[in-house]
């Protein structure tokens, strides 16, 4: 088994403020996980707001360097520095999908511009027909076609279509890994499902691994193979998605699951969370603890 992505003891610390009153924020602390090259999977990252999910994704994309530890992609270190050729080679392997489809395209420019540039750059061709073919193929994969997209501006498309164009663009270089940071948080339920189903079919049919960052436990349960749960920069639980979500063990994971709004008692206005749970989860913030493997394959952070 070869590894595709290896995240090794990665930490990221930000320094904020000027010369006076400097403050450091530990955005990510000791993150450790790896994805295998042979078994494409949807690897989900869930966690509280500000727990370092986006920071972790940015480090994997090589947009930010870890303060400690290293990230290896196919055995090579991911770094913010390095030549343009090297960067392009890396980008053809790892592509992002952004949160807000309306923000991901320059509103003043046509949508196809991004697809075309990607095809030209990463397929290293300037043959018009070849570029068009690559664009069309990628768009077909997400249920669109070049004919529908050509000549359109972002505001002439719905959010779901735009998000699919963004995914199609990311697929042009045939990358083995996609990083999707909250790709569905801005779209409504029905669009959400069409995008989530798309990610699923990318994994099953095209063998693309996806790192899926979300606040939505239900879609995570629905599509992901493994997941990690983060609290204040630390991974607190990691393992098979269904095992973890069916029966979370870390206090924060439990709180997370208990906080998911259900539609079972629609109209009854039940919103109370067990204060004991909130306290149990809150008390652990700031404690280091360590991840311990459990018999069912998951790892849970235990303290003291």
């Amino acid at each position, binding site marked *: 088994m070869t590894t595709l992505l290896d995240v090794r003891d990665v930490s990221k610390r930000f320094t904020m403020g000027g010369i006076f009153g400097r403050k450091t924020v530990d955005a990510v602390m000791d993150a450790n996980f790896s994805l295998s090259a042979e078994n494409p999977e949807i690897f989900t990252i869930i966690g*509280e707001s500000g727990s370092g999910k986006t920071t972790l994704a940015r480090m994997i994309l090589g947009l930010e360097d870890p303060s400690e530890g290293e990230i290896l992609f196919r055995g090579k270190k991911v770094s913010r520095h390095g030549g343009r050729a090297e960067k392009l080679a890396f980008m053809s392997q790892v592509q992002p999908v952004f949160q807000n489809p309306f923000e991901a395209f320059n509103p003043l420019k046509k949508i196809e511009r991004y697809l075309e540039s990607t095809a030209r750059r990463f397929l290293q061709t300037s043959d018009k027909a070849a570029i068009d073919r690559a664009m069309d193929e990628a768009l077909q994969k997400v249920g669109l076609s070049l004919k529908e997209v050509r000549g359109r501006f972002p505001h002439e498309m719905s959010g779901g279509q735009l998000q699919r164009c963004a995914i199609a663009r990311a697929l042009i270089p045939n990358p083995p890994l996609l990083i999707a940071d909250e790709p569905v948080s801005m779209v409504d339920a029905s669009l959400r499902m069409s995008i989530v189903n798309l990610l699923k079919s990318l994994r099953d049919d095209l063998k693309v691994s996806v790192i899926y960052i979300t606040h939505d436990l239900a879609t995570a349960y629905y599509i992901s193979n493994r997941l990690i749960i983060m609290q204040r920069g630390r991974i607190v639980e990691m393992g098979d998605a269904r095992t973890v979500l069916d029966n979370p063990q870390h206090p924060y994971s439990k709180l997370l699951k208990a906080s*998911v709004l259900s539609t079972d008692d629609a109209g009854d206005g039940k919103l109370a969370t067990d204060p004991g749970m909130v306290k149990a989860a809150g008390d652990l913030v700031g404690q280091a603890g360590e991840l311990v493997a459990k018999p069912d394959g998951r790892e849970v952070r235990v303290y003291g």
Partner: protein
Amino acid sequence: MAEDIVKVEGLKAYYQMNYFGVSREVRAVDGITMTVRKGEVYGIAGESSSGKTSFIKVLAAAIRPPLKVVEGSVKFDFKNGPIDVATATPKQIEAVRWKHLSYIMQGSMSVLNPVRRIGRTFHDFAARPMGLTGKAFEDRVIAHLARLKLPPEVLKAYPHELSGGMRQRVTIGLATVCHPEFIIADEPTTALDVVVQKEVLSLIRDIQKEMNAAVVFVTHDMSVHANVADRVGIIYAGRLVEEGPTRDMFFAPKHPYTAHLVASLPRIGDVKQRPALEGRPPNLADPPQGCRFHPRCPLAVDKCRQEVPPLEQVGPDHRTACWRWQDVKPLVNASAPSGVMA
């Protein structure tokens, strides 16, 4: 049944634009009639760019060009007298803003001025309507913040120094500090984690109960409506297509779009393939004839393509705008995981 606090009748509000010869009209709100009662939470759902925010802007009397009310009225019945915000003068609106009618805008950052401390923002918004100054004002604000579980220090902080959840609570504090009778909240919990989301929602609910205010709550997340709203209205392409008590909307929807929205919610413990709605939302500058949902509707018949279905009463408190409402079946029983019937 409680009295109405606001009556919206035949409201049409369009974005009318004329930019160097290109004139356009976006019919964002196209004939909405509804009421909100005293002391209830009314949820508004609908997909992106269906006109939710535009409708809310009219309700909140935040009508600014290019948005224009073309027809209809929005009559509030406040303690200090009735007012029609669709035609009121800025001065009349000023008199009810914050004290009677408050608005939590979409995107908390757009309300909080990034270069002003929170305390200053509170002062700007609330000092005049409350008629308090100096120490008395500050004490009231601090007491109010304490109820939202915010320490007094936040008054000295800049918005970017607070976490997303704290910022959201600050905006709720701003909207409720004057004890208004009517509170409007536009997507107050999108992009928060579920723990914080729940906290914020129960806060809104508690405050609403405590002050017996009416709340209009907008979000595209149906599971949020399931838990906070007393009644839910669904907006599709600028029109109200269904409205009813929350429970009925989830368990016995009478419009295909609502049925779809409810059924598309995935849940933990369920890995069935969920249907996604095909097609795309209509262009509000050139909406389809007849029922606006017809290009995407599985039940559409010829009549739907020509005639606009009226919003008709189909049960107690339940209205829907569909020619074939009798044929609408809940798609998947969203509420009942296999075998466990509520």
